[in-house]
Every structure is written in C-alpha cells, then in structure tokens.
C-alpha cells in the first residue's frame, strides 16, 4: 500500500534529533535550550511510531509508548520552565553560561 520506506522516516527523525542536539548544545538562552530538548523528544517519537508500523510485528505498542513520552515531555517542559522562572527571579538572567553557581 505505502511506498515510503522505513529508512526515510528514520532519516527525518535523525536529522531533527541532530538539529535539536545542536540547538541544545550551542544556544545560550535557556528557553531555547528547553525547546530544543522538546524537538529531540519529538524526533524519538517519530521513530517509535515508524517502528510501530514497519517492524516485524506491527502493533499499537509504539503509538501507546509515544503517547506516554508526550505526557512526560509535557511535564518536563512545565517543571523546567518553573525552575527557569525561579532562577530568573534570583539571578535576573536566562543565559545558561551565567548559571554556574555550583561550579564556583
């Protein structure tokens, strides 16, 4: 029925994961770092859903698992942003390079 091979989906997920990893490592704004991590989680979700359809035993397990991942990602975003706002209130910065209190 379908003609898009599994490799194409895996390639897309790999490219998005690399973009997210690059953003998380090089960006200095903490909000952007958080959102890059969301992009990486999304790339992993594409893999889960792709393998749910194209593996040896196709089934719904991958889709259910990706739903759980999305839930955990949402919780992570909320807690991460709360930490960010608490940090901003104390240090007046969102720059990750200046968040080095534990290194000094």
């Amino acid at each position, binding site marked *: 029925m379908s003609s898009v091979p599994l490799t194409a989906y895996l390639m897309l997920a*790999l490219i998005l994961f690399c973009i997210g*990893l690059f953003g998380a490592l090089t960006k200095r704004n903490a909000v952007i770092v958080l959102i890059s991590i969301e992009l990486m989680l999304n790339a992993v979700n594409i893999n889960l859903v792709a393998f749910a359809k194209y593996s040896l035993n196709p089934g719904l397990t991958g889709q259910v698992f990706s739903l759980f991942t999305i839930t955990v990602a949402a919780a992570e975003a909320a807690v991460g942003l709360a930490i960010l706002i608490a940090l901003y209130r104390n240090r007046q910065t969102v720059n990750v390079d200046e968040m080095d209190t534990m290194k000094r």
Partner: protein
Amino acid sequence: MTGEMIAFFLLALTAITGGVLLINLTNVVHMVVALIFTFIAIAGIYITLSAEFVAVVQVLIYSGAITIIMLFGIMLTRHQEKEKTAPRLKVWLAGGSIALFFIIMYGKIKDLNFGQQNAELHIDNTKKIGIELYSHYVIPFELTSVLLLVALIGSIILAKRDDDEKEAKK
C-alpha cells in the same frame, strides 16, 4: 511517485525547515514560531504513519500547550533583542561531534528494512488505543496521572513567590 510519497516529502521539508530556522533565527519569539511549523509537520508525518490519535495529541500538546508555555517563559523573562551566539570553538566542537554521530547513525539505518507488513493500524485507531490503555497498559496509565499531578504541584511551588520567607527575614 505516489501521493503518500509527495505528502511525506513536503511534510519532512517543512519539519526540517522549521528546525533549521530554529537554529538560524536571532529573535527568540521567531524561533518558537518556527518550531510550531515543525510540530505541525510532525503531526502530518504521524498521519502518514497511520497514527491519527497520536497526530491529534501532537497538535494539541506540542503546537498548543508547550508552545504557549514556552512563549510565556519568554514573555516573563527579559532577553537581549539579538541572541548572542556561543563561542566559535564550542560551536565547531558541537557541530563536529554531531556530524560524527549523524554519519555513524546513517551508516546503521540506511539499509534497515523489515519488509512491508500488512498492518491495519488506521482502522479504529483511537478505539484500539483506548482499549490497549485500559487493559494492557492500565498501571502505566494511572502512574502517568500521578506524574502529571506531581509536575503540576511541583511547578506551582517552584514558581511561587516566596512571600512568607521574605517577611520572616524582615
């Protein structure tokens, strides 16, 4: 070149464009808006993978909730108008490592093929997921609700202004 191929190609192009814009734009709000395109394109990718329910959840949670939360985070904190980039050495180091990672992973996945199975996941997708969630995955499902409650209370307590402590110090 079937319709599914074209749809996949356009969606993948949109998703990667959004990601590249996230890396290259300088205004923080524009970065988040670029990422909305990526999230919606990924929802389209899920539909081509016959996962309609996951696609709708993706639109609701990612392009709805998480983007709005991130925009709130940007509005509540002060930013420089232009994003400064990291030191050049760090960028090259990160880029080189990621390129190496990309090449290794590409070598592994380029010949991966399990053949075409006759899966009919798109028939009654939501109903089947609901049955799975409440039969096989009922304990993780309930644990997820606990996790969400913990995240809710935890983020409220973390972000709350500590008025009591400040008054006690005075």
